[in-house]
């Protein structure tokens, strides 16, 4: 193809600019407008034009760009196999906000700290959901490497709910694809009441020991409130603390004591973590929340301190 500018071509042919514009508009000179106020004309049409004006096409300086149609070489197979797109489904897109409104601008991919890990990024995940590639998403580890931090959503000009989409992918993956540690912790929580399977007597023992230590440290009169009915605030516990860092539990206890708070721990279902949130398992998430609500009812507490 030949790239022409109207003013320059008019000069070369010795006609007015508007004459050329009229030829193009009427179709007499087939040309296609391209950015930069330039037009593309085929080699053949350019030759015809030059002959009509008695000019030698070779003597006129123009810019030529190679196009597929100009080349004699046979069409080549694409080097990367094409992906077969599937029909759209609603599996991951209960709400259009999850993907349909995406403009594909890539702001999310720029914001994401793990873009390109495993060759994926939030934009690709959204496009895959839109283009019917759910099965590839359901086999991906990337959704577990994402921290659901929401930088992508903050960057998105269309408010696509990318985090919800990624969590939905997590939830739709077969449970044997959930990272073992998360699934096992969740199972343990369902069976024992906390993610690490700490027996009730051990939990109570740790609490009483810590309370003794606080008294020794000068917190006179400190007693750990276990199952105190009618306390104002029910305080949940992150199971890693009694398990691995029991001393860390004393910080909050000191604050609650110093503030003169009316608070209690429960010795049943005291777990403050809800890993079903991470695994995308709404049903289990609800069941674990219900346990805390039951404890509030049992202990007649008005307020729940969560998360902690």
């Amino acid at each position, binding site marked *: 193809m030949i790239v022409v500018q109207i003013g320059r071509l008019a000069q070369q042919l010795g006609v007015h600019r508007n004459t050329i514009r009229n030829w193009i508009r009427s179709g007499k000179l087939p040309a296609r407008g391209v950015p930069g106020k330039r037009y593309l004309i085929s080699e053949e049409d350019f030759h015809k034009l030059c002959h009509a004006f008695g000019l030698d096409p070779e003597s006129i300086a123009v810019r030529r760009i190679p196009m597929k149609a100009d080349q004699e070489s046979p069409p080549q197979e694409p080097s990367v196999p094409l992906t077969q797109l599937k029909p759209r489904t609603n599996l991951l897109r209960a709400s259009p906000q999850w993907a349909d409104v995406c403009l594909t601008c890539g702001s999310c991919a720029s914001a994401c700290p793990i873009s390109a890990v495993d060759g994926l990024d939030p934009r690709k995940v959204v496009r895959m959901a839109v283009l019917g590639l759910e099965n590839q998403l359901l086999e991906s580890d990337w959704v577990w490497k994402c921290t*659901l931090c929401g*930088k992508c*959503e903050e960057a998105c000009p269309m408010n696509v709910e990318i985090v919800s989409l990624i969590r939905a992918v997590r939830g739709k993956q077969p449970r044997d694809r959930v990272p073992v540690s998360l699934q096992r912790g969740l199972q343990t929580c369902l069976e024992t009441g906390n993610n690490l399977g700490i027996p009730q007597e051990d939990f109570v023992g740790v609490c009483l020991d810590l309370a003794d230590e606080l008294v020794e440290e*000068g917190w006179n009169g400190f007693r750990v409130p276990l199952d105190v009915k009618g306390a104002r*605030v029910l305080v949940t516990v992150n199971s890693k603390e009694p398990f691995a860092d029991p001393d860390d539990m004393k*910080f909050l206890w000191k604050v609650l*004591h110093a503030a003169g708070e009316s608070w209690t721990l429960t010795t049943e279902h005291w777990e403050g973590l809800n890993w079903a949130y991470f695994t995308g398992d709404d049903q289990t998430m609800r069941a674990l929340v219900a346990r805390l609500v039951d404890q509030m009812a049992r202990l007649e507490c008005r307020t729940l*301190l*969560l998360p902690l």
Partner: protein
Amino acid sequence: MLSIFDLLMDYVQTGRLELDPRLHPETTTFHDSCHYGRKSLQAFGHGYFEEGRWLVRQCCPNYVEMYPNREGNYCCGGGGGLWSVPFHEERVFHGRFKARQIRNCGARRVVTACHNCRDQMEKSLRKEYDLDVEVVYLWELLARSLAAPGRRSSGGSR
């Protein structure tokens, strides 16, 4: 339901907790946790951005910010369950932005209100990126800043 921010703000604002701002002169910064911030803003219409800063300033007058912060803050890299799963390299890689923010702000102490964030920064990023900081829970900072440790408040206004 209360978040820890609501509870602590109430204690300090109503005078039930007396804090001594002279105990922690070191430069201190506050890390916005994704879920207390962005996620809470989206889900409940309120992101806990200012509460943590105000509380930290009551204990540490020498306060600095990391940039970007609040809605634009970078994740510590340990959220979403990643702290508990075996994708160790990706977790540390994710944390590179947070590590750079911490180093650039020059703080010697990072305060946060999330167990995940605290563990990722204290137990992983500090070592992986050679950061000379201590990472503490918000309520830990308050417990360590009490003007009269061991004494029980008369109850204040409740």
